């Protein structure tokens, strides 16, 4: 099933939750909608599911207009952030719900329903919880039951809203890997919403980065990390150092200080310079584009994170390998291995 969204707009009062979004999702894809809270990603997901309606724009599934159908007819599996399991039903009945409410003409008989639910509970590896109530499950178990419930109706599309948002870090990592292999197994077109970049980069085939109701970049996890298209994407994905610079006459300046960095092809004016924390190489004073003094050092496993006060007045955080110990008070030269400059 392919999904196509064209020029979508959704307002809540005067607030534009979605501000002209175009998106194409290929058959069998596992797509991540990534963005900070308030970026419109959940609203976009709810519109695709039919739980919200756009003010203008188109949504189509396999080329056929989806907005002509209600949520009930769209045959979309939706997994809610807080699971929304039916609290008065057992796990078994929760998963069976979608099968039991089918119109009488196509409803399966009880034995078929039971077999199907059993199969789904096996798929999410929780068949031993069939008789429990949602309140008796852990967060991770509830999430997997919610997924099994959504899969019961053999959805054409699977939509997941912050699927791991309410779980602790360890369970979250396990479930991520599990979701990816599950998607591999069932291969249904899936979109999941997350504000966690690591989650998006690790699980998805393709990542859509959103901000303020607009799409900033669409690309593979490598694309959005290695070649961010906008300042927002660079700042949002990966840990970045952001410095306000000024370009004039082929020279990049930080404050009054000219930086020894190539300015070829860059438009003059105020710009932002982005460097990944680990791309800032530390050398002796005078060896790089920046000069600074180490103010604070902490060790994080393989790297040491140092706070460096640049002579231009800014303070930045860098990640350096631990082969050369940094000490508070050291004067250092810093040279970015790679950097990007965005106008504005």
């Amino acid at each position, binding site marked *: 099933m392919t999904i196509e969204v064209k020029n979508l707009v959704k307002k809540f009062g005067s607030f534009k939750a979605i501000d002209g979004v175009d998106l194409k999702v290929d058959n069998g894809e596992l797509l991540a909608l990534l963005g900070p809270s308030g970026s419109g990603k959940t609203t976009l997901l709810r519109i695709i*599911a039919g739980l919200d309606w756009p003010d203008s724009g188109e949504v189509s599934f396999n080329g056929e207009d989806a907005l002509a159908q209600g*949520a*009930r007819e769209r045959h979309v599996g939706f997994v809610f952030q807080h699971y*929304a*399991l*039916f*609290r008065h039903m057992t796990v078994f009945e929760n998963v069976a*719900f979608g099968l039991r*409410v089918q119109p009488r003409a196509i409803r399966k008989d009880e034995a078929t329903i039971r077999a199907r639910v059993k199969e789904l509970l096996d798929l999410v590896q929780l068949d031993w919880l069939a008789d429990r109530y949602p309140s008796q499950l852990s967060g991770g178990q509830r999430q997997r039951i919610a997924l099994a419930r959504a899969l019961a*109706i053999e959805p054409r599309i699977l939509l997941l809203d912050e699927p791991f948002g309410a779980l602790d870090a360890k369970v979250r990592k396990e479930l991520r890997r599990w979701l990816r292999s599950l998607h591999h197994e069932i291969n249904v077109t899936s979109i999941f919403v997350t504000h966690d970049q690591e989650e998006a980069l690790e699980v998805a085939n393709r990542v859509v980065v959103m901000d303020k109701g607009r799409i900033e970049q669409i690309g593979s996890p490598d694309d959005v990390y290695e070649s961010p298209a906008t300042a927002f994407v660079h700042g949002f994905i990966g840990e970045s150092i952001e410095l306000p610079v000024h370009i004039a006459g082929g020279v990049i300046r930080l404050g009054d200080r000219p930086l020894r960095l190539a300015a070829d092809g860059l438009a003059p004016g105020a710009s932002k310079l982005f460097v990944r924390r680990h791309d800032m190489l530390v050398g002796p004073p005078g060896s790089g584009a920046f000069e600074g003094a180490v103010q604070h050092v902490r060790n994080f496993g393989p790297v040491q994170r140092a706070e460096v006060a640049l002579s231009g007045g800014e303070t930045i955080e860098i990640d350096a390998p631990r082969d050369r110990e940094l000490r508070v008070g050291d004067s250092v030269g810093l040279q970015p291995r790679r950097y990007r400059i965005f106008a504005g």
Partner: protein
Amino acid sequence: MTMQIADSVSLSTSEAKARAHAAAARDNLRTEPRAVRIVVIALAMIFLTVFVVLPLVVVFAQAFSRGILAYLAALAEPEALSAIKLTLLVAAISVGLNLAFGLVAAWAIAKFEFRGKTFLITLIDLPFSVSPVISGLVFVLLFGAQGYFGGWLRDHDIQILFAVPGIALATTFVTFPFVARALIPLMQEQGTQEEEAAISLGASGLQTFFRVTLPNIKWGVLYGVLLCNARAMGEFGAVSVVSGHIRGETNTMPLLVEILYNEYQFVAAFAIASLLAMLALITLIAKSVLERHLHEGDELRDD
């Protein structure tokens, strides 16, 4: 100082000390002296005994003052039986109507946003803020011989006032808020996610209501019905205005109690009153059971 001593003694003693300390700290939080506390509690108990327990005891004492046979005989009077029947009928009608109205109103208020919502909520509370006698008079003004619809009703030979329909209408009006009031906060707190999940799984509106919404609010519904029923059976003011006090026909139990009392038939009056008192006791017990279930629901909630 305490710390130094605790360091030198064994662990269990220090734990015991810590516990004693905590208890002392708790006591210290209550700044009132012991005597004040005793006086306040005693006042509350005396007040409750004089104003609540004593009247209840008197009702039963009077009802049984000539023995159990006189009591049963009083209840077996045709007038008494007719009043009991009428009360049950009126309660059934008004509880049924208010259950339907209350569910619809609470559903609309809790699950949808619309213009005039605040006004609707205020309107639901209106019967609580108006004196029941006024509520009854409204129906007299509407349906009485000189009322707006009086002529039309007479022409078509429809009897509303001084008959069962009038009594049922007045009772329904007075007891309207109970079910809606019990459900609105409950439904607002539960939100709409489970309903959204049901619809995305292919359930129709009715399936969603009966399989998801209703089971989630069933204890709240029972709670509202219970209170609504208690008030419907006990309502005096509004019913008194519209009933016409036709003996054996339009007297409900509360009305009959008053009539019998005014005729110095104390045993009969208190016998009927004792039934209403028992209804109150049963309501209280059922209410505390239901409240426990409502709170169980709290623990079952996700997160």
